[in-house]
C-alpha cells in the first residue's frame, strides 16, 4: 500500500514534503490511539485505518511516503487499525469545529485562490466561535482548545476535554446545532403569561441572552428603534424599554403586533448571532481531520498549530503558513493566476501559458493548486 507517484510535479512535492517531515516535529495527543489516513493527488484520503505506535514510527512513514494529505481521527480507539469500524472499539473523541470560507465573503467568487478578504472573514468566524460560544457558553478553558489553520482556507478548533470525550453523535449534533442556531425558535424563548409578554434578559445564557443583548445594543440605532415603535425615538422611552428588558419583561413595547415584530427582528438577527461551522464535522465521532502542522497538499502550506487561541488574531495564513524557503524556481502557469501575495512576495497576475521565476513557497503553492507546472 503506497501512494503512486507519477508526474514530475508529484516527484518534486514528494521530495520537498519528505524533507519537511524529516526536520519537523510531528505528532498528536494520544497518537497511538488514533486512526490515520493518507491522501494523494487524486483524493484527500486514499488510505485509512493506519495506526502508529509512536511519533518515531509515524515520522519514518511520513518521510518515506510523504503523502500530500495527512489526517488523523478525532476519535481515540483501542484498536485504531482494526476494520470494520466497530472493531476499533471507540473510546471517545475530541470535539471538532471546522470553519471554512465558502469564498463568497468578498462579494465575487474566489475559486481556488482564496482571497485575503475571505481569509479574514473566516478568521473572524473562528474568533467569534471561541469568544462567543466555546469560552462563555460551553465553559471550556483556553487550555482545552487547540486551534490550527486548516492549511487551505479555514481553521480547525479541537476541544480536548473530559466534559465532551464520550459524547455520542447526537449529543455533538446538538452542540453543532447550538452554535449554528439550528432549531432556534422564537416561541421557545418568549412566552405569554396572561396579557403579559416575557422573554430573555440580557444577563441570561444562551441565544435568549445573546438576542436580548444585541437587541438592547441596537436600540441606540435610531432607525432600528423606530422600526419597532415610533415612540422609541425618545431617549426616555428607550431607557424605559431597556430597563424592562433587563428584567425579562418584553411587555413594555407600546406597539401592536409586538410578537410579530419581535419575531421578525429575531429571525433577522439570529443569522448574525449564530456561528458558521460545518455541523457535519462536529457531529462525526469518527471523522478524519488534517493533522496539525502537517502540509496541506492543496496549498503547500502547513496546517499551522497556533500557540494559543489568542494567537489567531495575529495569524496571517499567507504569511505564516507557507513552509518552503528553498531556492527560487521557474514554473509555467496552466491557467490564469490572479495577483497574489505569499510571504510578503507579490506576484501575478500570470496569464495562462506564461512562465515565471518565483520564490519556492509561491511556486509550490501554484503547483499544489494545479495551476502551474515546473518549467
Amino acid at each position, binding site marked *: 500500500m503506497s501512494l503512486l507517484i507519477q508526474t514530475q510535479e508529484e516527484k518534486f512535492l514528494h521530495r520537498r514534503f519528505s524533507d519537511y517531515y524529516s526536520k519537523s516535529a510531528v505528532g498528536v495527543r494520544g497518537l497511538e490511539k488514533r486512526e490515520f489516513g493518507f491522501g494523494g493527488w487524486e483524493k484527500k484520503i486514499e488510505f485509512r485505518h493506519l495506526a502508529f505506535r509512536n511519533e518515531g514510527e509515524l515520522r519514518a512513514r511520513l518521510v518515506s511516503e510523504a503523502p500530500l494529505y495527512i489526517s488523523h481521527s478525532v476519535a481515540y480507539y483501542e484498536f485504531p487499525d482494526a476494520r470494520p469500524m466497530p472493531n476499533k472499539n471507540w473510546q471517545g473523541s475530541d470535539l471538532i469545529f471546522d470553519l471554512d470560507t465558502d469564498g463568497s465573503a468578498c462579494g465575487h467568487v474566489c475559486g481556488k485562490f482564496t482571497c485575503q478578504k475571505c481569509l479574514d472573514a473566516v478568521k473572524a468566524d473562528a474568533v467569534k466561535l471561541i469568544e462567543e460560544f466555546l469560552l*462563555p*457558553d*460551553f*465553559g*471550556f478553558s483556553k487550555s482545552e482548545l487547540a486551534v490550527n489553520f486548516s492549511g487551505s482556507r479555514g481553521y480547525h478548533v479541537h476541544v480536548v476535554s473530559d*466534559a*465532551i470525550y464520550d*459524547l*455520542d*453523535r*447526537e*449529543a455533538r*449534533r*446538538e*452542540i453543532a*446545532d*447550538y452554535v449554528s*442556531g*439550528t*432549531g*432556534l*425558535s422564537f416561541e*421557545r*424563548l418568549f412566552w405569554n403569561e396572561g396579557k403579559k409578554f416575557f422573554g*430573555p434578559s440580557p444577563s*441570561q*445564557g*444562551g*441565544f*435568549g*441572552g445573546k438576542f436580548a443583548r444585541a437587541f438592547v445594543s441596537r436600540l441606540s440605532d435610531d432607525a432600528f428603534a423606530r422600526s419597532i415603535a415610533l415612540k422609541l425615538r425618545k431617549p426616555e422611552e428607550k431607557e424605559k424599554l431597556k430597563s424592562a428588558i433587563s428584567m425579562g419583561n418584553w411587555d413594555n413595547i407600546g406597539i401592536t403586533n409586538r410578537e410579530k415584530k419581535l419575531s421578525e427582528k429575531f429571525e433577522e438577527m439570529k443569522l448574525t448571532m449564530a456561528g458558521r461551522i460545518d*455541523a*457535519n464535522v462536529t*457531529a*462525526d*465521532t469518527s471523522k478524519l481531520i488534517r493533522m496539525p502542522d502537517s502540509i496541506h497538499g492543496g496549498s503547500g502550506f502547513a496546517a499551522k498549530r497556533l500557540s494559543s487561541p489568542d494567537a489567531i488574531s495575529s495569524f496571517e495564513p499567507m504569511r505564516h503558513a507557507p513552509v518552503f524557503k528553498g531556492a527560487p524556481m521557474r514554473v509555467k502557469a496552466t491557467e490564469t493566476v490572479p495577483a497574489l501575495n505569499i510571504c510578503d512576495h507579490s506576484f501575478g497576475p500570470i496569464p495562462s501559458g506564461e512562465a515565471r521565476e518565483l520564490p519556492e513557497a509561491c511556486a509550490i503553492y501554484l503547483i499544489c493548486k494545479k495551476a502551474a507546472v515546473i518549467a
Partner: protein
Amino acid sequence: MADLLFCSHYPFSSAAKAYVSERGMEIVSSYVEKAEERVREAIVSGKVRKVPALSEAQEEELALYAIARMIVSCANNRYLINRYAVSEAKKTSDYLSSDASARPDYVDAVAAEFGIRFEKDGAHFLVPLGKYLTYTPRSTDYKLANREVSAGKVKVSSHERIRMLEEAVKKKIERELPIRAAFPAEVKAAGARMLALLPKLEATVVKVGQENYPPCVRRMIEELSLNVNLPHTARVALAIYLVRAGVPTGKIVDIFRGAPDFSEKTTHYQVEYLRTKGYSMPSCATMDSYGACVAECRCGTPLNYRANVHGRALKKEEGAKA
C-alpha cells in the same frame, strides 16, 4: 447509606447493591413468582408497582428487583429488556417526584449514581453540558439551541431534572442487561415464558420495491426488528423514506412495531403527519450526520438508491478495498 427506604425506592443504586450483598439473598420460589409478575406487568402495562411502606416489603423489593433482572436476562430479547427498562425508569421517576420535596437528599444521591451534580439556581437547576446532552431525550423540548447555556452549564426545571434521571436509569438498565450467568431453572423457565409477551411481527414486513432499499434503510429496519431504540432523527428519516417509497401507513407502522417504546396510535399519527406534510428525504450527507449512513453508495439521497446501479458499485468498491 444503609437506608432501606432509599434502597427500596432505588434498587439499581450502589447502596441497594451493597445492602443486598451484605445480607445475602436467597432465591425462593415465592419470590420468583412475584418477580415474574413484576416483569409481566412491566412488559404488558409499562408499569412497575410501588412498594408498600413496610420494611419486609422493602427487603422483598430488593430481592424482586434482582430476580426480575435475571428473568429478563434469561429471556434475552432486546425488546423485552428495553421495555422493562422503560417501566423501571418510570417507577424511579415517580419516586423521585415525591422524594424531591420530602427527601431531597435522595434525589441528589440518585444523581450522584450517574456522576451528575445538579446545582440549585433559584427554582431551577444547573447541570453540566455533557451530562445534559447525555441524559436528555433528543426532542425539540430539549433542543440545546433554545436553552440557557452558560459557563458549561444548562438550566433545567425541577421536572426536567427528574426526567433526566429517568433517562439515566433507563439507559443504565438497557446497558447492563442481559446479565450473562448461570441462573436457577425456575428463573430460566420464567424467562422463557416472557417471550410469549413479544408482539407478533409479520414475517415479511414490506414488499414494495424492497430490493431497492439502500443499506441505511435496511439497517434501520433490521435494527427495529431487533428492538434497538433508534434515535428520533433516524426514525423520522426512515418514515419519510418509506412514505416516499410508496409504502402504505399500516405497513410502516408494522415496521416500527419492534421499537421498545412503540405506541400504535402515536406512530400512526406521526407517519400520517409526515405524509401530509410531504417532507423531503434527508440527503446522504444529512443521514451521515445522524450517524445513520452505513455505506458509501454515492446515491446522493437514499431515495435514489438502486440496487443494480449503486449496489453493484458498492460491491465492487468493497472488493477493491479488501
